[in-house]
């Protein structure tokens, strides 16, 4: 039984939002060089706000093993970053193929323009590496 089953078991019913989407925005490139992540954070807030009716960002520190988009570890070191988490709680009608594609496009642009090995998005407890 996973935790979602457990919540259902103890009486939780579906919420007014059906999905949780979290984008992770790093502030360092694949070589560990810092860049200004704030414009990307603002853009992500605007995008997720438009697509999903709302988004909240959280500053956080993270440590990450370097790995590429296939999950392969590229070296043994860990990188410490000031990650921004952009969280949206999404109602079913807003969770569309077009919205997912648009988020994917944004994250691939972030990956390319800020020189990342990989970028990550969590949707409903599944981590997707792009």
């Amino acid at each position, binding site marked *: 039984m996973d935790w979602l089953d457990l919540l259902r078991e103890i009486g939780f019913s579906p919420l007014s939002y059906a999905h949780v989407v979290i984008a992770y925005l790093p502030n360092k490139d694949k070589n560990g060089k810092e860049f200004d992540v704030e414009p990307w954070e603002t853009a992500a807030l605007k995008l997720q706000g438009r697509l999903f009716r709302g988004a909240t960002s959280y500053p956080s520190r993270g440590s990450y093993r370097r790995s590429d988009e296939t999950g392969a570890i590229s070296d043994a070191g860990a990188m410490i970053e000031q990650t921004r988490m952009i969280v949206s709680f999404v109602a079913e009608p807003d969770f569309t193929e077009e919205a997912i594609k648009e988020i994917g496009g944004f994250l691939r642009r972030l990956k390319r323009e800020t020189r990342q090995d990989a970028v990550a998005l969590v949707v409903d407890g*599944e981590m997707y590496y792009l």
Partner: protein
Amino acid sequence: MARLSKEKIGTLLRAKHREPVKTPLYYAPPFLDELRKGLQERLASRGGRPTVSEWEVVRKTRYSKKTWQWLAQLAEQWSQGGVSVSPSQVAARIVEAVHRAGVR
């Protein structure tokens, strides 16, 4: 419209790889931050301990030691830089949020 499968979401994102994130605590920090913020904004004092005006019913409730310790720890964190919050107020805020979220 049919719900999107994980596989379909991966295809739409053009993700190269995906893996499950099992722990519910993944979502907990933002959730608790929101509760803390909401409580701090609503607490007001009329001379006594600050309280939320629509919380009119007072009841004694038993907790396990473990749960109370967790509530006390949260209350200490939530009191930093704002109005002092009690463990019971933390509990009331969590129950209120769960109720509003749609628990039957």
